[in-house]
């Protein structure tokens, strides 16, 4: 059925990972000087940058909400982020992802603190190798914290899926394309609530439950990396000073 095996007999994947292992993640905070907050994430070969502006005056003004801030999100893939050049115009897929990313971040923010304003989140995919919507949410949540916007919790996102009959965590592009199903998931780990849950493919109820559990485990690992990254910005200064 499969032309190339993605998982070998001992349960090791094409890139050398175990089934329940994340790709190596690198996070950096405050990478853009002109944004109010920003973050950069490298998750395996996927590279995503997120920028946050606001809360600021919303234009056109008639769109502003009288009781809370408006959260606006743009998920965009750079033309050079994929093998075949992608048109820079927002595609149907990007528009959908902008919406689900917005809905994944919305519950974490105290929008009601700043009525009539807008908070703008820009997620730019620089290199895509699967899991970019999750990487985008992970980075955007950090960018919001970097911008000083009050949030209930960080949002951590990760996908899990079923590849060649086995449950795997954090799918690459190749694994995603060959998968029977994949489930991107975003959670607020301290509050234990899910903010994004999608599924592409077919699973039985039992399979679905195990995969969600696996994705939650991945999100929790990402959450601890997020915390360290946020702290690193300030801890580094402290270490230099105290030398």
């Amino acid at each position, binding site marked *: 059925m499969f032309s190339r095996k993605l998982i070998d007999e001992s349960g090791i994947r094409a890139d050398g990972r175990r089934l329940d292992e994340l790709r190596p993640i690198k996070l950096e905070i405050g990478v853009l000087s002109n944004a*109010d*907050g920003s973050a950069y994430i490298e998750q395996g070969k996927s590279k995503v940058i997120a920028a946050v502006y*606001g*809360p*600021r*005056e919303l234009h056109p003004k008639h769109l502003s909400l*009288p009781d809370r*801030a408006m959260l606006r999100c743009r998920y965009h893939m750079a033309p050079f982020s994929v093998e075949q050049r992608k048109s820079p115009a927002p595609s149907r897929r990007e528009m959908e992802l902008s919406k689900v990313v917005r809905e994944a971040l919305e519950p*974490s923010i*105290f929008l009601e603190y*700043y*009525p*009539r*304003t807008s908070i703008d989140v820009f997620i730019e995919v620089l290199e895509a190798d699967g899991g970019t919507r999750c990487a985008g949410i992970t980075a955007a949540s950090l960018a919001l*914290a*970097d*911008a*000083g916007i*009050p*949030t*209930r*919790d*960080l949002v951590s996102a990760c996908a899990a899926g079923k590849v060649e009959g086995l449950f795997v965590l954090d799918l690459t592009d190749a694994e995603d394309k060959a998968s029977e199903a994949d489930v991107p998931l975003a959670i*607020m*780990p*301290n*509050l234990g609530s899910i903010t994004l849950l999608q599924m592409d493919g077919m699973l039985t109820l039992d399979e679905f439950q195990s995969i969600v559990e696996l994705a939650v485990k991945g999100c929790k690992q990402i959450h601890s990396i*997020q*915390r360290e990254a*946020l*702290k690193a910005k*300030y*801890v580094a*200064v*402290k270490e230099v*000073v*105290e030398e």
Partner: protein
Amino acid sequence: MPTFFERRELVVPGDLLAEGDYVAGDNAYKDGDRVYAARVGLVEYEERVVHVVALSAFYVPRVGDVVIGKVVDVGMMGWIVDVNAPYLAVLRASDVLERPFRPSKDDLTAIYDVGDMIIARVVAYDRTSDPLLAVDKPGMGKITRGQIVEITPTKIPRVIGRKGSMINVIKRETGCNITLGQNGLILVSGPSLERERLAVMAILKIEKESHVSGLTDRVTEMLQKEVGERKSNV
């Protein structure tokens, strides 16, 4: 009723700070009987109040604050001022002129034009309407000379120091006049460009190292060293 962090420990949004009979202060919120952090900052436990001194935040106007702003628009009845907040502030011409204001005769651009920096006071603000400014105290109005530095607004108390210890050190060592805007903008004007640069350097050092203790001593040391070097060069 446990608390989960040391005093002045670095926390990030979502960190569980305390559980039980506590009250959530600034940059913290309560869900059930648990208090969580809402911003990156240093946690403080004072009696039953748990709050976070934010390391990254933006300015939200408060009545009585002295702010430094930039005129972004001149309208019929007054000016629109950017005070580095989520909302643009309004300065009414009738509040600025000493005499009755006649829209047909008075030229507002002759008083403040677009791009001018002004020192003003917030006289009215709530979240339903934009902040209203006034320039009714001595020293307020258009800024004609000096340099403006921008820092995180929550670090202004750090620039002042305990009973003004920090700001007095900077003023003494550099001989500069320093006006603090509560919105994070600081006006530095001094006898020479060199001296102003020194004061700016000190302020930026405070901004960067605000969360590390012993800051006043380090700033004093740095300023005395720099001032000494400059004297020996002459």
